[in-house]
């Protein structure tokens, strides 16, 4: 799983919340979206859905603020993980993440986060419209550049 990341395309998301279900089943054995590591942010009025996933940042702030080092970088797999045996559930990482990621598990009383399901993300497998994909980090850059170019082009389109 070296160098692979989750990539979200909000335009494709239909808000079915399948990913939340399979994520919670995979990680906690029960179908309970409040224990999922992926969450869908909904704008009902405009019909937009945004799957929120961990960005596994290069210099994550969640690891910086964690008082116990439970939240740490797994350098080998290039991901950020939380050790549930060390987490005390202080929620500082939740407050600090700019991407609204780690979530408090109300049953285990610790914070949980996406760990790429050890290389086989369930949300990707079960997302029918393919709004979430697991791709090489380089590819994502290409997509981003393409998107940015399109955005600028759209913005500068004459007559808008």
């Amino acid at each position, binding site marked *: 799983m070296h160098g692979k990341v989750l990539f*979200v395309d*909000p335009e494709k998301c239909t808000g079915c919340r399948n990913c939340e279900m399979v994520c919670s089943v995979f990680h906690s054995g029960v179908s309970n979206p409040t224990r999922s590591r992926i969450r869908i*942010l*909904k*704008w*009902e*009025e*405009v019909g*937009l859905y*945004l799957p*929120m996933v961990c960005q596994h940042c290069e210099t994550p*702030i969640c*690891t*910086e*603020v*964690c*008082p*116990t*080092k*439970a939240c740490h970088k797994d350098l080998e797999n290039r991901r950020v993980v939380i050790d549930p045996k*060390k*987490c*005390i*559930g*202080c*929620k*500082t990482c*939740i*407050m*600090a*993440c*700019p*991407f*609204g990621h780690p979530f*408090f598990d109300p049953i*285990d*009383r*610790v*914070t949980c986060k996406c760990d790429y399901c050890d290389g086989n993300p369930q949300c990707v497998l079960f997302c029918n419209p393919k709004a979430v994909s697991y791709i090489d980090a380089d590819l994502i850059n290409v997509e981003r550049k393409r998107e940015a170019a399109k955005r600028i082009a759209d*913005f500068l389109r004459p007559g*808008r």
Partner: protein
Amino acid sequence: MGSSKGVESKMTGSFNSSRIGRHLKPQHHWGWIIAIYLYLAGMGAGSFIIGTLIHWFTGSTKLMEIRPFTLQLDIAKATLLWGPVLVAIGAPFLILDLGIKRRFLYACLNPKTSWVARGFLILSSFILFGLISLILSLSPDLRTYIGTDGIRGLETVALILAFATALYTGILLKSVKHVALWNTYLLPLLFLISALSTGSMSLLMLILGMGRTLLQGIFSSSLIKFLMGVEQILIIIEGIVLVLYLYRVNQTNDQGAQGGLSVSLLLKGELKLLFWLGIVFSGFLFPFILESFFSRFPEYPALVWFAGISLLLGGLLLRYGILMAGVKNQIPMERWIEAQHLLGRLSLKEK
């Protein structure tokens, strides 16, 4: 050129006045328990700072024998012990808020980068120093053994720790970074001044509560008057810092920062009652007015009690309000979707 400027200004307008789909709500991860923790830690530290200064400048001692034992308590030092006692009551509130409370000792494992861990260490050391001064104030033999210089040294270290504790309560929130309301140096400053003001008020109430007989000859009525004056000045400074703080945060609205929205949440949103009644009236106006009355009519000590209770409540609500209104900045993705949507809507309108 002109039209693109028009689009921008319309965008900013809609961004600030309405949110798409996500109504701005108070945050809920850190609530009352953390507010009480920050409040008691601040108040304890503040009362220790003021108590130490009084102790240094008046330098009085009054020994009281503790009967069954061969111990003597220096009552004048009661003002010094009060601070660590408050912090010691406040510290367990952090533990109370943890998901898994029995693991609380883990909370000091990462002092290199985490302010929660640093705070844990600062508060524990402060409580430890309080304990040492309690032991010292109980045993005259130990006092002579350590000597005045030694005691002064210990008190100085404790004073530094008290300042660190009071500032820490603000820095902890600031260290979270992506909450515009908390991400300013004015917050630790505000909390420090509020700590001094609530601390000195609690000290004043302690002195009055312990009664004149017990403390006869140590705390003169002129000292009480002086403390009252200090208290009033602190309220004014705190008020100015609060206005400056809110004004400053209100300006931060770029890059998805929710500073302005957090301030409106406090001033005219869901938290407006808490802000105007709990913080402004109970924490500033009411105690200030009562204290002014008291300086004219010192024969009514009840005025101090009412002022005190109101001010202490205001101090707690200040922490709670600032915690609640600490709305996280928008996620870049979210910002982008919103911008896209707004642009789409605008272009539809223009068509």
